[in-house]
Structure formats: structure tokens, C-alpha cells
């Protein structure tokens, strides 16, 4: 039995471990790219190159060490992100920038191609087969609209802010309107009004929800109605389900009793009996001083009887 348990447990752990690793890398997304960089983000050497931003959409740390990035569909393993670098562990909802400078000797995050070579990009998991995310970015003559994600007191919306005649153009990035999301633009992608390497493409104020709630609902009436409705619906559904389950249980109990030849009564034990038991227990606890200090635990102990020749035998028999 014990052996069986360990086998099952090991199997479950292995399955979970394998799935967890795969799930983690699959949570990475290509998030923003800049093809021509003349006056934008600089690398550690003080040089400006095109860059690729990746975003961890999950709520857990993802290690991208061993994953591949490529600009060639026929060679998905073009650049392997080295393993063992602590910086390849991307924290939840965080970004990492890879330099598309064709200078891989400069470090982990400098890939062996540039973004001007092709108009595609593939991020592949560490098995070299599963494409986690891919991008086909617009190039050539436009015009291409430039978009912005607005979040203010009027709500959240996407607005077009001008256009560019052609792409690539210097210092204009192509990215997701909302980090990691596919809403708006071209499957979530658009030319952005400003570049945001290593940071959110749009920053939504986390207090905005609470603030807006107060603005529209200054005394909490909407909250009370909404929330109480949900609480009532939850418990009402539970009530209705268990009403039916209860009926089914009573019916099945009666059938069983009928099969066994027992005539069921609605109130087999009258309330007075419960009351008498409760009173007896209450008095026993109060007068006998046998209750210990815990409030919610009722302790019954063996009654210790003093030895006499008259009761010893009986006590001994009852113990067995």
C-alpha cells in the first residue's frame, strides 16, 4: 500500500513538475520591439541598437535560460539564451530587453541578428520546437497609425495619435498596447507613441479601481447592492442544491428503511430529548469540573472510581 502511494505521488510530482516548467516558459510574450535606434535606450557599453522586449505574463518567476529567439522560421534555434545566468530568471509581470545587435559575444542578452534583416520574430521554448510567441511586424510604405492606451477618469480606451509614413523609422517602437495582451490594434500590437524598454507599455494606476468606485458610489449603495446580491445568489444556489440533495437523501433513507422493514417516523427523537442531553452535559461539565480550558472542545474522561472489593471486578469488566 505504502509503495503504491509513493509511486502515485512520484508520478504526480513528475507530471506536475514537467507541466509547471512548460507552462512557465509558455507565459513569456514578445512585448515590444525597436528596429532603428538612434536616440533611445543604450546598452551597458553605451551603444544604441535595436531591441526586443520580452514580458512574463505569469504570476510566477520564469527562467528563459535555454530558450531560443530567432528571426528565421527555418532556423528557430538561431540564438540560444544562455543557461545559468541569474538575470534570465524573469520575475512575475516583469520585462527583459534583448539587444538585436548581432554581437552575441557582448553577453547573454545580445543576440546574433538584427531586426532589419527580416520582419519576423520567434520566441521558442527550451525544447527548440514549441513556438511560444511569434511576431510579424509591418515594414515598408504606410501610413501606419500610432496608438496610445489611455486610462483616466473617463475610463480605459485606445486612441489613435497620428501616423507614420513608413517603417522602420527611427526611435518608434512596435509593441503591445497592453503588456502581454492581444486586445486592440493588430492582435494587440500597434506603433506606440513612446518607447518603454524594460517597463510597462501602459501603466494603469492600481488604485484607480477603488478610486473610481468611490467616485461613482460615494456612500457605498452600489457596492452594498451588488455584493449582497452576489452573496445571496451564492448561498441561495447552495440552499436550492442542498434542498434537493436533502430530499433525495430522505427518500433514499425511507426506501432503505422500508426494505429493512422499519417504519420511519418524522420526529424519531423529540426535541425534549436533545434538550435533556444538552442539559445533562452542561450540568456534568459545570458541577463535575471536568472541562478543561478549551472552549470549543468537549472532553469526556474515564470516571476514576475508588477501589473497593465491590466494584473492582465490575469496573475491570466494563473497561474491556
Amino acid at each position: 500500500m505504502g509503495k503504491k502511494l509513493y509511486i502515485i505521488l512520484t508520478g504526480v510530482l513528475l507530471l506536475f513538475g514537467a507541466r509547471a516548467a512548460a507552462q512557465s516558459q509558455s507565459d513569456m510574450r514578445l512585448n515590444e520591439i525597436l528596429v532603428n535606434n538612434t536616440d533611445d535606450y543604450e546598452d551597458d557599453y553605451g551603444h544604441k541598437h535595436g531591441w526586443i522586449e520580452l514580458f512574463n505574463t505569469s504570476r510566477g518567476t520564469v527562467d528563459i535560460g535555454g530558450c531560443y529567439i530567432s528571426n528565421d522560421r527555418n532556423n528557430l534555434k538561431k540564438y540560444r539564451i544562455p543557461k545559468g545566468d541569474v538575470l534570465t530568471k524573469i520575475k512575475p509581470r516583469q520585462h527583459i530587453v534583448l539587444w538585436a545587435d548581432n554581437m552575441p559575444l557582448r553577453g547573454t542578452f545580445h543576440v546574433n541578428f538584427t531586426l532589419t534583416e527580416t520582419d519576423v520574430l520567434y520566441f521558442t521554448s527550451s525544447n527548440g520546437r514549441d513556438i511560444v510567441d511569434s511576431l510579424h511586424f509591418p515594414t515598408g510604405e504606410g501610413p501606419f497609425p500610432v496608438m496610445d492606451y489611455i486610462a483616466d477618469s473617463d475610463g480605459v480606451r485606445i486612441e489613435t495619435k497620428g501616423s507614420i509614413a513608413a517603417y522602420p523609422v527611427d526611435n518608434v517602437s512596435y509593441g503591445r498596447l497592453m503588456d502581454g495582451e492581444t486586445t486592440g490594434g493588430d492582435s494587440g500590437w500597434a506603433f506606440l507613441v513612446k518607447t518603454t524598454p524594460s517597463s510597462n507599455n501602459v501603466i494603469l494606476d492600481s488604485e484607480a479601481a477603488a478610486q473610481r468606485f468611490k467616485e461613482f458610489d460615494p456612500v457605498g449603495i452600489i457596492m452594498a447592492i451588488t455584493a449582497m446580491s452576489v452573496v445571496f445568489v451564492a448561498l441561495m444556489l447552495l440552499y436550492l442544491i442542498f434542498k434537493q440533495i436533502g430530499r433525495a437523501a430522505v427518500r433514499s433513507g425511507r426506501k432503505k428503511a422500508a426494505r429493512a422493514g422499519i417504519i420511519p417516523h418524522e420526529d424519531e427523537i423529540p426535541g425534549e430529548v436533545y434538550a435533556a442531553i444538552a442539559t445533562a452535559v452542561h450540568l456534568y461539565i459545570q458541577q463535575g469540573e471536568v472541562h478543561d480550558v478549551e472552549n470549543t472542545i468537549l472532553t469526556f474522561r474515564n470516571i476514576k472510581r475508588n477501589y473497593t472489593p465491590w466494584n473492582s471486578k465490575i469496573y475491570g469488566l466494563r473497561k474491556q
Partner: protein
Amino acid sequence: MNAFFSFLWDNLQQFFGYTAFASFTYGHAIMILIGLTFLYLAITKDWEPMLLVPIGFGIIIGNIPFLEGLSIGVYEEGSVMNILYQGVRLGFYPPLIFLGIGAMTDFSALISNPKLMLIGAAAQFGIFGAYGLALLFGFPANEAGAIGIIGGADGPTAIFLSGRLAPDLLGAIAVSAYSYMALVPVIQPPVMRLFTTRKERLIRMRPPRAVSQREKIIFPIVGFLLTAFLVPSGIPLLGMLFFGNLLKECGVTRRLAETARGPLIDIVTILIGLTVGASTQADKFLQFRSIQIFILGALSFVIATTAGVLFVKFFNLFLKEGNKINPLIGNAGVSAVPDSARVSNNVGLEYDKSNYLLMHAMGPNVAGVIGSAVAAGILLGFLS
């Protein structure tokens, strides 16, 4: 010789600088007195001793002044108290307590008479009444939500939600919630008497039917699926509550259930009580808003009790004679297990010495636990 005494005096002065006396303030004295009061109430009056003893002593620990920078205080990163406090800050103690509560709760009363669940829902109005009042007091919506949850009369839920919505108010909210839970026998009876007639208090309810083990096993599974699908943000609390109950009822995990309702919940209760107490340092706790929180906490309990009692009266309008519910069990919907159910029973016995309401009151009482966890999930979903 003179130099020796001068050296000795300097050292003594330096030592004095390290002692608590050097930076002792009136604020610390007040907080230590509050801690001692908690200990007094717990030990001599038997008011929620399992909670008030750790919290009371924690308040004393948290209000001994010390020289900062030595990794001693609960808010100093890396200190022992700070490490223990992470369970409160990150919110993993409350679900563990819910696991234990699930493993020790018998939902039979509720399963046998499922309409009592609705009382547990009605009493949650205390949360949203207090939320509205907190908004009127000028608190931002997230803080108002955290304060409102005091009305759920559920310590772990209050800690869980305030840790996420308003961490700065966590100490005041937790102490307020536990204090009023201890004061349930004082707060609730006058409200219950005010809103009920003598005739209503004498209503006798039908004894609950026996519940099969199959029903008891189905309850946590269906209960979790239903509530979690409606309010996924309540999963940490609801998941652990129903999982604990499944361990208890399934009949094949006796050892796990015993650990959950015994050693595990005891350990977590010690840690949560002590660290919540220690987090009430005078400079953070003795503020005007703490007083406001205490006022709102008291009001939330009153609103919740009123809502529970009035809902039963309203519900009775639709029930046939013989099936009516005694409105004295309406107060039990606020959770505060099992004290509020005990209050129902005691008040009922004052009017009819043979009308024991305890078993009936346990239904809305445990429904209140589910209701307050659902309400916490809703607040978290809307305001975080």
C-alpha cells in the same frame, strides 16, 4: 582613578541608551496597558482567551521601545518577529486557520435545514453598511472595504482582506475584529431584544433531521465549486475551509483532519495572535483613525446583528406555521463561531427554559463563515 569612573559612567550612559527606558513614551505606556487589559479579560473573564492572550502579549512585545537597526522589531526586515509577521503580511496564516476551522466545523445543522444559509447571507449586510459609513468618514474605498470586513466577525478573513487592501490599517482592524468578537455576548443581546417580540422569541423550531455521511461529503465539494466559481478571489479562504471540511467528513483522512484542527490551527493561532498584537506599535496604532475604526467596527456588528434578525422576521412571513424560524438565531449569521450561536441559545433560554436554539443557530453561524469569505472575495475583486 578619575578616568576609570568617567569611563564607567560613559558606559553606563551608553547602556541606558540601549534600554527601553531611554525611549519610553506615553504612547508605549497606553499600548502596554491595552495589552494588559486584554490579558486580564482573557484570563479572568474568559473572553476569547485563545485569541486575546496571544494578541495581548503581542501588544506588550510590540510596544517595548528599542534602538532601531538591530533587527528586533516586527517592522524591521530580517528580524525574527518580522519573519513570523510575513504570514500576516502575505496573508498565508488566515487560509491555514480556515483549513482548521473547516476540519472542526460540523455543517450538519446547515445541511439539514439549508434555508438557514440565507440568514448567513443577510448578516453580511454589516460589512457593506460599515463600508458605506467608512466612506462617509472619509476613508478611501480600499480602506473602507478593509474596515467593513470587521462586520463579517471573522478574524482571519479580516486579516486576509486588510493585508491586501489596506496593510497600514491591519493592526487596528485585526484588534478591532477580535475585540468585538469577544464582546459578542455584550453587543448582540440588546439588539436582538430590540427587534423581536416576546411571541417571536418563544418560537420553537423543528429539530434538525439526521444528515447522512454522503451529504456531508458532497457539501464541501459542491459548496466550494459553487462559491469559488462565483467569487474566485475568495479561493484562498473558501478552498481551505471546504478542503478542511472534506478532510473531516470523508472518513479516510482522520489523521490529516486531526492535524488541521489540532496542532496546525493551534500553531497558526499562536503566530497570528502574537504578530498581529506586536504589529500595533504605539506610533502606528495610536492615531485618530484607529478610534474611527473601532467605532465603525462596533457599528458593523450592530448592523450585521440587526440585518440577521430582521431578515428572519421577513423570511417568516413566507413560512408556514410550524416551519417558522426563531429570529433569535438571526444574530448568528455574523459568524463569530460559536459565540454568536451561544448568544442565540442563551437569550432564547431567558424566555423559555426548554427552548434550546444552539443547534439551529449553528446553521446560520457556519453559513456566516462562508458568507463573509464570499463577501471578502467580492471586496477584493472590486477594490484591489
